[in-house]
């Protein structure tokens, strides 16, 4: 019962998504209208860790929690890329993760989008030039948007995802 009374006491913890902060978002190209129309209300995301330090993962995990609550926008996470519409890729792509990343991309049914999260995903960050790194995400699979930051805030990531599907809030 303590749990239920605590739930009632806390109430709704979701914060409204603050506007602005578009400086960290880089849309590589205008997203296909068809994809925008299809994913406007329901978007399934498969998160792929292509060798990150897990800093971005921690921020992304906040997205599913009560404060940032991506689900209110119809954005939810799925386990299999076959169920996914959008791949959320983090980390400089390490050599071991290059092939799995490509396989994940191939396993995702069309139409699909890719958002690369974090500085490492765009520029390999501090790992640039390392022997273990194969390249940035757009060198391995086609990317639709980058969200800069090390790590970016959950609001930035969420706004990036929403921008890619054409839902600016």
């Amino acid at each position: 019962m303590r749990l239920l009374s605590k739930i009632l006491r806390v109430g709704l913890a979701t914060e409204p998504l603050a506007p602005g902060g578009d400086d960290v978002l880089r849309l590589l190209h205008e997203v296909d209208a068809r994809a925008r129309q299809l994913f406007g209300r329901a978007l399934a995301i498969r998160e792929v860790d292509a060798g990150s330090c897990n800093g971005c993962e921690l921020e992304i995990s906040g997205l599913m929690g009560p404060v940032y609550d991506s689900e209110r926008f119809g954005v939810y996470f799925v386990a299999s890329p076959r169920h996914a519409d959008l791949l959320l890729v983090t980390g400089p792509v390490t050599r071991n993760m290059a092939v799995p990343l490509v396989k994940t991309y191939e396993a995702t049914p069309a139409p699909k989008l890719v958002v690369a999260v974090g500085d490492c995903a765009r520029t390999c960050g501090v790992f640039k030039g390392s022997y273990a790194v194969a390249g940035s995400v757009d060198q391995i699979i086609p990317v639709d948007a980058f969200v800069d930051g090390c790590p970016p805030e959950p609001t930035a990531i969420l706004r990036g995802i929403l921008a890619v599907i054409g839902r600016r809030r």
Partner: protein
Amino acid sequence: MLGGYGVGAVGALLMPGGRAGRGIAAFGMVWGGAAGLALSLQVLLGGAAFTLEVPTLLSIADGLAFRLDALGAFFLGLVGLLAIPCGVYGFEYVGAYEGRYSLRLLGAMLNMFLLTMSLVPCADNVLTFLLMWEGMSLTSYFLVLTEADEPDTIAAAGWYLAMTHVGLALALAGFLILAANATTTAFGDLRTAAASLTPAMRNTVFLLALAGFGSKAGIVPLHVWLPRAHPAAPSHVSALMSGVMIKLGVYGLLRIGLDLLGGGPAWWGALLIGLGALSAVVGVLYALMENDLKRLLAYSSVENIGLVFIGLGAGFLFLGLDATAAALVAFAAALYHALNHAAFKSLLFLGAGSVLHATRTRDMNRLGGLIRGLPWTAAFFLVGALAIAGLPPLNGFVSEWLLFQSLLPGIESRAPMVAPLMTLAVSVLALTAGLAAAGFVKAFGITFLAIPRSPAAECAHEAPVSMRVGMGILAVACAVFGLAAVVVMPALAAALAGSARLPVPVPGFGSGVSLSMPSGFARMSPTLVALGLILITGAAWLVVRLFASRWPVRVSATWGCGRVVQTPRMEYTSTAFAEPLRRVFAELYRPTQDLSIDFHPESRYFVQSIEYRSEIVPWFERYLYAPLVTRVRRWSIWVRALQSGSAHAYLTYLVIALLGLLTLLIVRPG
């Protein structure tokens, strides 16, 4: 009918082998089967019995007498029905034995087997019955022994021979007690004489019949020959043995218990239900753990015979309680399940034979992906698997529904211990249905789906036409028996009516497409359910075609979390599939595990090989039969002392025996 099988037998013996020899044998089987089926239908639907007497042959024991009444006609029809597809199938199947084993013997024995099996239900006196029964056992022994090169065959045949003769001895004892009071050994006289037997004698006869015929039927604990003999025999022989021969055990029990003795106290039924429930659960649990496809099917036969015995037990129980209408329904439901089991189990065995023919292995852990190489076999096996799992709208579901419904009146009964027994029976029925479904998802899924697990499975090829036709006939039969329940049930009830105190005006079981219980308790329509399913599937497909996207289907690698390659080693195995159930029922299985890992000599981080061995306890073999066999061996060694080889000793035995007989004649003259 005689002509058909006779031609087949003699022809097979005389032909030099090759296609013609196989053809003659198969032709004989089909002709004989069709004739038997026609005869049985004539008796079942016509109502008049068919008699034939040959009193001069072997007149010392009242000669041979044949009388085909409705009950026997059902079982004769069963033999004939299965002889046809198995004959057609066998034509190509035994082609693989060319040069390795004697096809003449196989063909001859198979036709004789079918002949004797057909004549068992026709027998009208003790001699005929036992002669035919023994003939059936001997011919099937030789059939099991066909593949004598395989390691387990001889042992399996030995077990089978021993148990079938023990069963024969017990059944013979039962018949002799019955005949003690009667004038002749004709069944008619036995029936009238049985009325004057004391209850203790009747109970003894029933128990002896149960033990004798039960061992042929394969109920626990007399089932141990089944999982050995059925896999060892050629597949169409296994189909016949599992489909028909074990049903003749049911026939024997019904003949003695129901027809000759006319039913008995309610505890007979309770005993049958208990044994049936035990067989059903043991059978399905051991089937789940099997990796050998044919052994899995054999254990599944044990399970289904258990279900038939539950129905029979309910019938005897209701008869003992004078609820004759409910008894009739229960018996009819049991017979219907026996019919359906014959259809789908044979289909499954023929399918397994096709797999064996293509890949030379029965081990499911070496199969897989066969749906591509053997599409027809896969489709037929799927029909069989759906039927045996009791899924609508096929025949297995209809007979399980009928068994459920026949048990229901018992739950309301106020007689002592009936309601708990019925509740037990219902739970066991449901549990085995669920477990059987799980077992056959495993059997079909691991054998036919996914990727081939061995090179043999990779290059498997489809079965030849005759084998496919044989399987096809049975698949159609499965569907027909499910949809035509309204017609089949009254026919079965008619087969039983008149025996014992079962009511002769047979109640209706619904009309048109709807099957209903005579008490009005429940109704359902397998035909309309099937129709509905087809319509909805079609409608769904159409709607999806119209409204879904027009993207073409893209073929890609299986999603494996991005792993680089997929090998067959990464798939689920048959052992793995059954593992959760093995854990759940660990108290019964008492699984032992033995894991040995060979590490690389240089470093423990690298593994060279892993050997994993897991065994479950075969309770009956280890704790019942092994001590029994050891004891019998010891006695035989002790008794062998009598065979000293000395003529003097033998003469002494003769004298003692003569003196004993003379004394006996003096003491009890006449």
